[in-house]
């Protein structure tokens, strides 16, 4: 089977599991909502401060929920010993990675959209006049988070104690993606004609680097 075919099969399988069980979304969406409320408590009811910090809060809520999402993406696999099957399948391991990442990216995109609606409602964040660029920021950001998250999520389920080390690694490794995504979102929602090309370029570069390296090294992590 070709890489694209394997990736498609794995990705569609993951999404079908999620559509039928809704186990991931039913956890991470309330989690993100709780976090937004908590941010609201921390920053007080003053409207100006909440509005200024809203783009950052949006991405932070998405990031923390995403850590859980990446973990859950592999939880079902490891519980049913399905990882053995993936390991033994005579296909390119990198293609499995791409499939898992694509499915996680779709779920994360849904999560991010729901979180955005909540941020708009709770903090009064305007979506700006350039929705296409905002959507591009979301897509590039989601791909960046997923490219690494799908690799590290595997580390979280392959053993007993390893989960503790994964958030320690996820946050610094992903922080450049988060910084760029927050800044671009901030500039785009502020209105006016701010240049976001540099930030989007940075996001795109990260996506390319981490997707490629994830594709190459995934087999070594799964090989256990």
């Amino acid at each position, binding site marked *: 089977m070709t890489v694209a075919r394997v990736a498609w099969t794995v990705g569609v399988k993951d999404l079908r599991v999620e559509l039928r069980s809704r186990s991931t979304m039913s956890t991470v969406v309330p989690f993100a909502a709780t976090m937004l409320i908590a941010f609201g408590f921390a920053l007080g009811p003053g409207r100006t401060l909440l509005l200024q910090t809203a783009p950052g809060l949006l991405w932070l809520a998405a990031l923390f929920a995403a850590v859980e999402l990446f973990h859950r993406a592999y939880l079902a696999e490891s519980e049913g010993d399905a990882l053995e099957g993936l390991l033994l399948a005579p296909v390119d391991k990198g293609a499995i990675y791409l499939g898992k990442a694509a499915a996680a990216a779709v779920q994360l995109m849904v999560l991010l959209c729901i979180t955005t609606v909540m941020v708009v409602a709770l903090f009064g964040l305007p979506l700006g006049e350039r929705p296409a660029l905002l959507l591009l920021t979301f897509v590039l950001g989601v791909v960046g988070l997923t490219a690494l998250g799908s690799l590290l999520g595997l580390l979280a389920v392959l*053993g007993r104690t390893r989960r503790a*080390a994964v958030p320690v*690694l996820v946050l610094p490794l992903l922080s*450049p993606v988060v910084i760029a995504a927050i800044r671009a979102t901030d500039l785009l929602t502020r209105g006016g004609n701010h240049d976001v090309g540099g930030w989007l370029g*940075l996001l795109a570069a990260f996506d390319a680097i981490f997707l490629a390296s994830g594709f190459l*090294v995934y087999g070594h992590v799964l090989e256990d």
Partner: protein
Amino acid sequence: MKLSNRVLTRVGTRGAQRALGWATLASLAVTVVMGLLVVPPDATQGDVQRLMYVHVPAAWLAFMSFGTVFVASIAYLRTGRIQWDRIAVASAEIGVQFCALTLVLGSLWGQPVWGTWWTWDPRLTTTAVLLLIYVGYLALRRVADSPTRRARWSAVIGIVGFLDVPIVHMSVVWWRSLHQEATVLRPGAPTIAGSMLATLLLAVLAFSLAYAYLMVVRLRVGRAEDRAAGTVLSTPTPRAQTPARVSAVTVTRSSRHA
């Protein structure tokens, strides 16, 4: 591989280590004398600028250490030989030290010159992120249960983590920032007085020797650790008899792709 083995054996001897240690001490001493007494203070910043002679070499060495982790990680994944993993972890530990040193010294320098301990300048921020990545790298190593898994996973992080380094360098170009532009490693003549440049290069040499010395000592500790773990595990204990552990040890001791 054979050549690198021979080099490792040669620098691993006690005499070589002692010589390296003395060379490190001597070059550091000369750097101290040059940096504090011989070279004139900076025209605008005064004596504070002397921090450059430790700040800049520490930063270069931190990047070099993480570069070594990157190369050793790739070599480990390709060959499966455990000595590459020992090189990677030794370099990562030293790199974390140098990286932390860079941030602390930069902070001390920034307070009198920029008027602040810390600024969210891209290069500072990315250096802090780099430090966190390799602290995470070391954390991941501590929680892994089999030597093979530990080596393989930390190799993956060693590769992915190092891919952040280009962002550090490019960030200077991408964003306008408070940080002064690179003065030595850039096209055209360095914008620095000759004696200052000489002292800086001497400091880099001293720090590199310190790095080499620490590496050699750490590699010996790594070999001793593995040997100790090997002795413990080769005499079967209830835990060592579980298949996963036994196979992990066998895989570690012979090379995977013989």
